[in-house]
């Protein structure tokens, strides 16, 4: 902490109610077992549009979206409460693509017209927006092969993005492409624009994604999001927020994987006693509990900092994402081990957690990248 008092890490009464309601909704309406169903039928959507719509009606998609765009105008902290609960059942609904990438990019860099065109639709659950930044040839979002060549009245974008979250389903895509000098610029592209083609991809974690190809896609000058040539800096600020939001999701997932494991330790008997009476397992369960307790503090602080101390966001984003990645993957591995044989069967839900853990670990920076940036921010 650079300040002498920690940010408030408590939920107010309304937030506690939101957490409780979201918890009940997710557990009842969106069980993790859905992931298997979507996968087995190669579902084109990969999530439930009905559930998304219902969450919009409950006000949850517009929690952080300002009043002028029909949102509730609350904070990122409030959004994180719902994201945490979404993690419990590994919900594949488009939280990351639309609320954490698309909406944040628009909020941080979008023009008035861009925000007006999309944010109200996002809050209403009617519009999906994603950010296309991953490429086959580069693991650094600052270096892009996709190019945007200046044309008479704008730009022409050509290139290929991979694993664009919900890329085949979204209404608009914010794509990073190199402009003069090779520095990336972000462009808002209509998914139906001529030259945009998508191919659905299937990942281990059941998160919908697609290869998105751009072939001489013509965009107007006013489609630039943020400033020309400053796409990398804008993306970094978007990723900082997205990393915190994803960390909240990972916190919920870790909590649930541990809760399921504890229930199993109490119920499964071997040698005529519950296996949870063995100290070798008890101490490992406590280690997971402790890691999650630390992660909860960090996620709450990072979410609060986004609303209240913008200058501290990079540090807290690194902290939250690094810890969330290590913790969730550790919990998921231990959860399988403690479930024994049943834990490695496709039939049991606990195995779904390690798949999401691996996918989220690799998203918005691996822990070692966050530690390197943390060290840089701390001057060493």
């Amino acid at each position: 902490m650079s300040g002498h008092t920690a940010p408030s890490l408590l939920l107010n009464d309304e937030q506690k109610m939101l957490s409780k309601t979201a918890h009940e909704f997710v557990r009842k309406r969106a069980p993790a077992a859905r992931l298997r169903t979507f996968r087995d039928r190669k579902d084109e959507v990969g999530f439930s549009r009905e559930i998304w719509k219902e969450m919009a009606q409950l006000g949850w998609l517009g929690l952080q979206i300002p009043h002028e765009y029909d949102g509730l105008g609350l904070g990122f902290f409030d959004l994180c409460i719902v994201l945490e609960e979404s993690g419990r059942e590994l919900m594949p609904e488009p939280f990351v693509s639309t609320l954490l990438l698309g909406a944040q990019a628009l909020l941080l860099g979008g023009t008035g017209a861009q925000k007006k065109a999309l944010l109200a639709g996002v809050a209403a659950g009617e519009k999906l927006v994603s950010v296309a930044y991953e490429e086959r040839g580069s693991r650094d979002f600052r270096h892009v092969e996709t190019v945007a060549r200046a044309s008479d009245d704008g730009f022409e974008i050509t290139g290929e993005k991979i694993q664009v979250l919900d890329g085949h389903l979204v209404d608009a895509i914010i794509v990073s492409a190199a402009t003069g000098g090779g520095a990336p610029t972000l462009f808002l592209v209509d998914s139906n624009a001529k030259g945009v083609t998508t191919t659905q991809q299937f990942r281990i974690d059941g998160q919908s994604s697609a290869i998105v190809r751009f072939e001489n896609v013509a965009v107007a000058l006013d489609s630039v999001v943020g400033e020309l040539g400053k796409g990398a800096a804008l993306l970094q600020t978007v990723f900082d927020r997205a990393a915190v939001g994803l960390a909240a999701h990972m916190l919920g997932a870790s909590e649930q994987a541990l809760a399921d494991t504890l229930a199993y330790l109490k119920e499964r008997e071997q040698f005529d006693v519950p296996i949870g009476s063995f100290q070798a397992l008890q101490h490992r369960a406590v280690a997971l509990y402790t890691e999650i307790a630390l992660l909860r503090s960090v996620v709450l602080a990072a979410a609060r900092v986004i609303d209240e101390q913008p200058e501290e966001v990079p540090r807290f984003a690194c902290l939250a994402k690094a810890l969330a990645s290590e913790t969730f993957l550790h919990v998921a591995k231990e959860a399988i081990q403690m479930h024994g044989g049943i834990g490695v069967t496709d039939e049991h839900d606990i195995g779904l957690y390690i798949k999401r853990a691996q996918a989220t670990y690799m998203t918005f920076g691996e822990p070692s990248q966050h530690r390197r940036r943390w060290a840089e921010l701390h001057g060493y």
Partner: protein
Amino acid sequence: MSDLNIFREEARAWIRENAPRSLWGTSGSGPFEGYWGGSKDLEADPDILGWRDRGIEKGWTAPSWPKEYGGGGLSVAHEQIIHEELKAIGVPRPIAGQGLAMFGPVLLQYGNDEQRAEHLPKIARGEVRWCQGYSEPNAGSDLANLQLRAERDGDEFVLNGQKVWTSHAHLSDWIYCLARTNPKAPKKQMGISILLADLGTPGITVRRIDLISGYSPFCETFFDDARVPAKNLVGELDEGWTIAKAILGHERSSIGRSIARQPGSAEREVVARARKHLGVGHGPIPDPLLRDEVAGLGMLEEAFHLTLARIEQSSKSGTPGPEGSISKIVGSELKQKRFELGMKVAGILGLGWEGPGFDDDDLEYTRDWLRSRATTIEGGSSEIQKNIVSKRVLGLPEGKK
């Protein structure tokens, strides 16, 4: 502004006005850091003694104790604010130690009026220093196995046996100890009582224990027909175990918090040592693996401080719950990691025990590294803490130990 915010302003102003400049930045302001008082620790620094006196005058050596016992008569929330404001500028509490952090709260809760009136004001004024008599040679993790005998004889108890790991007994005036008053009780947790003894009592002797670090903060305390007045029994006869567990709760959360020091200080310390020993000036640490480890330490430290803050913010009652066990587990591991990394960056220059060729800071650091091996053992080992969390928080069934 809320009352607490107004109070924070007042506390900040008073502390900054009254704390001597020489003490700023010298402490993490934890309950065990600083001057412990008593009749045997002959502190000479006028700033430390002056700060003690200002604290006593204000009632802020024990802010949440009733005024009649030398406290400040404030709420736990107010007390927390005072401690936060001390920590903000790194000033130690006016008086620290076992009496204020552990024994006092227990006496407030379980003692009788006479005991409170006799002992609490002397603690709040730093006149009497207390130590704790818990562990014995055959009662470590299995504390309830303790054997110190206390037999009633008229209006006295006669004590026979031995305590071990009595911290700073050689500098203390009084000891509060667990003694077996009924050896025939059906369970070993029964028949234990809490007794208070003046260490000057004939029959009590104290011997210091040398540790691997070369330091001797702990003692053995022997009782050989030592006679203690019966009024020194705290709580009910034979029912001291419940109180003992409450004291351990305070101890765990206090140890966790006292390890905390200033946020970011462990990271800064290791970075400073890396720069000193690797000769890299103010640039980045050149070895990326080492830098990764240091950043990992810094992140753990930050997460730990945020967790302490969360526990404090949510514990309105001020009674430490099982979270104290978590803070002790994490805090002690953090402390060990910090010293391990600090030793790693020093290379062979961290190998000095004493004498030429080593600088004083490095010699002290090495001793502190050795001392840090005890943090996961003292105050209930990490394994015992994990047993507690497993049972009380996770609800896992008790098994064979």
